[in-house]
């Protein structure tokens, strides 16, 4: 079964090529079959590979396959080679399966769009690039996929390219992530100049042997790589692009800007965990970045009114959790949260897509309401997704994944009560507050817009499957004090360095779980009090100036956009305007114009009067004789 590994990224790529060259002439149905089918087959292949991986684990815990050479120079060589281990397989499963469900959903969601084929072409290319990213056995190939997903993200955000503001959002996303990418490229350059290889396993071995823990080089290298990770994963300080990226079609938000691409940074750090182990300071920084991001994005999410922007900030915030997990060394927990988050966030976005479609492209939740009865299927699935997001205790997958990270934050060597208090208490409270705010405002109360365009089967089936996964996905890894299930950890744990002091159980853990669960329920309750109970507290608060000021500040994403606009965009524009006149070129032209001026001055002597010329001759004669006299 391992022989088909290369097919997994190749199938979506083939789909892309077919669609991009022939798609314009394909009937819609054929384009949909090609687009959805290629990802479906890739998912099938992944399941087959995964099944044989589980039943007969390969030697060394990884399938390695080298397709063909790419660059082979004496000082550096890398190839198109894949390496599939448990971590990769987890990512691949999420990418292909969630990707397939979203493709299926899109085949109905996008069916009225004029460039239906192009949408699937981009989506297929995205899936292919993302698979290359996670399967690459060397960092150059990983970087290829890394850039590839960024490119697809650009095209898909700006898919409705007739709207200039969508194009701006797309451009912003590409440029901001490119800044991170360049940082990552420099990180690769540092690694190459130290170890002369880009093969990930080889690199990790050589780094462990060649670098002393905590010395300067690993710190710089991991910092540069972290730059790439925060760019792609929309963490502080490069998080500004993700909320605007919601300009893209909703399935794109679900697939790229929630489930897969934005977690590439998490994958990168997890993949290079051995490297980060050499730079403890940077790893702590990862935790701090994650913590800051999750709080900040959670605060911003509370003030948003656009349903998709709420979800976007919530994505940033949840990836912050994953970074927190990575930072404290609980890699398995971070990956578990990644998987669960992919399920429930994809679900939430897809459900939001149905809602927005049914409300005639209205994004503002305060103009919606009462959809509970109008769209029951969507309501229930959205509720499940929101519960999972809010980590409602015991029944949701989100509870188990988040609990694991919080336990790490409390208990790991680098963690501590402060991390737990800020990240756990505040973060959980914020999360359940904003997610249930969205639920209450959107689905309860009076219906303000009549629903139109109800979803068909191809949109409902993915919702139901994802809802099931959002509940059931959590039960493969349960804390030992509740029930000793540890399937996920035993599957993926071998890839990572051992988490420091991972002993579980005890009364502390139970206490922590109770506090976190209580906070999550308090958040739901607060949302109910503020936004549901008739003319609630929210309306009364809305009158005070202070509240409005805070709200505006939070609404703007805490002012980052404003700062960046003035610090970078305006500066660049000014520089471009200043230089447009070709200041440098002018200097060269000045020589020319000086010559022309001299020429004109001399030309004035050419009066055409013969006597003037004779005067010139005479002056010359005088000068010559004078020179003879004087010298």
């Amino acid at each position, binding site marked *: 079964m391992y022989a088909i590994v290369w097919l997994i990224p190749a199938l979506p790529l083939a789909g892309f090529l077919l669609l991009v060259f022939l798609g314009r002439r394909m009937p819609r149905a054929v384009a949909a079959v090609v687009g959805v089918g290629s990802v479906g087959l890739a998912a099938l292949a992944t399941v087959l590979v995964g099944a044989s991986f589980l039943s007969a684990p390969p030697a060394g815990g990884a399938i390695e396959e080298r397709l063909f050479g790419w660059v082979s120079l004496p000082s550096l060589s890398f190839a198109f080679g894949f390496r599939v281990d448990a971590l990769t397989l987890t990512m691949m499963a999420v990418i292909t399966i969630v990707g397939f469900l979203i493709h299926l959903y899109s085949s109905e969601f996008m069916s009225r769009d004029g460039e239906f084929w192009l949408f699937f072409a981009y989506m297929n290319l995205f899936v292919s690039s993302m698979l290359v990213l996670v399967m690459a056995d060397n960092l150059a190939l990983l970087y290829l996929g890394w850039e590839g997903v960024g490119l697809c993200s650009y095209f898909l955000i700006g898919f409705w*390219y007739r709207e200039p503001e969508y194009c701006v959002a*797309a451009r912003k996303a590409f440029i901001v992530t490119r800044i991170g990418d360049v940082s990552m490229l420099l990180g690769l350059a540092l690694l190459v*100049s130290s170890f002369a290889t880009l093969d990930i396993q080889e690199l990790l071995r050589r780094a462990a042997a060649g670098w002393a823990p905590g010395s300067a080089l690993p710190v710089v290298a991991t910092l540069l790589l972290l730059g790439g990770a925060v760019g792609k994963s929309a963490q502080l300080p490069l998080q500004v692009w993700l909320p605007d990226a919601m300009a893209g079609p909703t399935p794109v938000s679900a697939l790229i800007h929630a489930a897969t691409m934005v977690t590439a940074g998490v994958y990168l750090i997890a993949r290079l965990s051995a490297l980060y182990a050499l730079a403890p300071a940077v790893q702590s920084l990862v935790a701090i970045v994650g913590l800051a991001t999750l709080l900040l994005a959670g605060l911003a999410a509370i003030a948003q009114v656009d349903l998709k922007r709420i979800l976007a900030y919530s994505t940033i915030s949840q990836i912050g959790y994953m970074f927190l997990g990575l930072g404290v060394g609980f890699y398995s927990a971070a990956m578990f949260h990644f998987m669960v988050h992919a399920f429930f966030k994809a679900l939430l976005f897809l459900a939001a897509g149905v809602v927005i479609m049914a409300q005639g492209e209205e994004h503002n939740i305060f103009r919606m309401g009462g959809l509970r009865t109008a769209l029951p299927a969507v309501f229930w699935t959205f509720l499940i997704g929101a519960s999972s997001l809010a980590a409602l205790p015991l029944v949701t997958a989100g509870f188990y994944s988040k609990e694991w990270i919080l336990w790490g934050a409390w208990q790991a060597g680098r963690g501590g009560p402060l991390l737990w208090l800020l990240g756990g208490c505040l973060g959980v409270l914020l999360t359940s507050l904003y997610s249930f705010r969205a639920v209450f405002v959107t689905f309860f109360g009076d219906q303000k817009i009549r629903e139109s365009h109800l979803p068909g089967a191809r949109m409902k089936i993915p919702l139901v499957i994802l809802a099931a996964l959002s509940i059931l996905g959590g039960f493969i890894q349960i804390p030992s004090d509740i029930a000793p299930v540890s399937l996920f950890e035993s599957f993926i744990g071998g890839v990572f360095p051992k988490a420091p002091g991972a002993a579980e159980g005890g009364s502390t853990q139970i206490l922590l779980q109770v506090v976190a669960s209580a906070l999550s329920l308090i958040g739901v309750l607060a949302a109910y009090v503020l936004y549901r109970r008739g003319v609630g507290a929210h309306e009364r608060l809305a009158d005070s100036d202070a509240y409005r000021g805070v709200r505006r500040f939070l609404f703007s994403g805490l002012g980052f956009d404003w700062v960046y606009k003035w610090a970078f965009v305006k500066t660049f524009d000014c520089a471009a305007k200043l230089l447009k006149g070709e200041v*440098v070129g002018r200097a060269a032209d000045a020589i020319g114009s000086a010559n022309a001026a001299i020429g004109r001055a001399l030309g004035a002597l050419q009066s055409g009067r013969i006597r003037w010329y004779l005067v010139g001759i005479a002056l010359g004669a005088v000068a010559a004789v004078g020179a003879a006299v004087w010298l």
Partner: protein
Amino acid sequence: MIPAIVLLAPLLGGVLAWISGRAGRLWVRIWPLALLVLDFAALLAVWIGGNPDAFHEGAYSFYADLIVPWIPQIGVSVHLVLDGLSLVLSLLAVFIGIVVILVSWKRERDHEGFFYFNITLVLSGVLGTFLAVDLFLFFLFWELMLVPTYFLIVGWGGERRAPAGFKFFLFTQLSGLVMLLAILALYFIHGGSSGVYTFDLFGLIGTPMSSRTSFLLMLGFMAAFAVKLPAVPFHSWLPDAYVEAPLEATILLAALLSKSAAYGILRFVLPLFHDAALAFAPVAYVLGVLSVVYGAVLAFAQTDLKRLIAYSSVSHLGFVLVGIFALSPLALQGSVLQMVSHGVATGALFVVAGFMERRLGHRDLSRMGGLFPLVPRLAGAGVALALVALGVPGSGNFIAEVLIVIGTFQASPLFAVLVSSGLVFSVVYALWMIQRAFHGRAAVSGSLRDLSALEAAGALVMILVVFWLGLHPQPVFDATSRFLQTLQGGA
């Protein structure tokens, strides 16, 4: 004999085109095209079947080596060699030549015979610089490129062609004269110290001189190459020349003439003045980084499509300059790959820009928009090539820039950081171009003709070549590595 055939075939085509100028529109095109295709086939045959070690000269080895005494009294000979580097670049030149003739196939203009003669003359000049290792001969070809290009700009250019052509001529001619001075100085120093007066590169390598002299002579060579490359701040001829030249000449300028400068640095400056070049490297880095950043910022500021591409070209060639002087194996290979890939990609981008100009009647970005649904093939090609300009993964530019950044990092981390900022800026202008031209609301009412099947096939071939270079660059590396390896030791 092969180098001579390679060199003379386009020229023969041009002469035949000129002679048959009155016989009709067809022959004028067929002659040069046929001979260029033959040339291309010959070069390919050498690449596939030739023996790269057939001839030796010191540490260097060649596919073919041709020496015919020309003016033995002063040590001038027709010395042409074909090694991997010149082979790859000659292939690029002939390929671009074929593209140029095909692009102009349907275009009617005055004095067509002379027009094609000029084009093939430029090609011969470029091929000559790629093949000649006699400095006198090299200089001859270097200047030979100049005159027909000037004629092309002034004879068939746009509205402001006269000043543009004049500026181009003046810049390149003056800098060329500085190089001539350096060549002569080197000739006399070598003759004076060894008693053998020769212009042959391999005879001149290792001429003993003080480091100060060596540095000055290298500056003389670099003057010519920096202007032709061009490196900021010697670039001010470029935007005008690129914009005012007819499409065919623009393609030649962007794709080939700039490469001849980079090639000159590799072939002559580094072997002749290795230590001086090392001393000069920081300056070259600064010039390169300046070009990268300045070109990118100015590309963003343009509204004229051709001008935008012209500045983007400045930016990309800054990478080449930095990569060459980093002198690490990765950066050198990256630079050569960037030369080839940029040649094809920018050539293709200018072709697309030319197609757009023919259809719209102007090339003002602020009056474009929404072309994607109107002309999907043309816009698709344009988007793909703009993406190549920003280093889309899988393209030749991508892998070349990655290698240059990595290689430069080994030599100087600081300049690697600075030059990589160009990767961000390139995104800014390339996306700006895509969105102004192809995205947004349609600015053109009515219908435009999309690319014909043949035009689309041509554009596709060029795009595929760029991606082939990105996904399978190994043949280029293998061909050029012999020469590039000799550069590092300080031959």
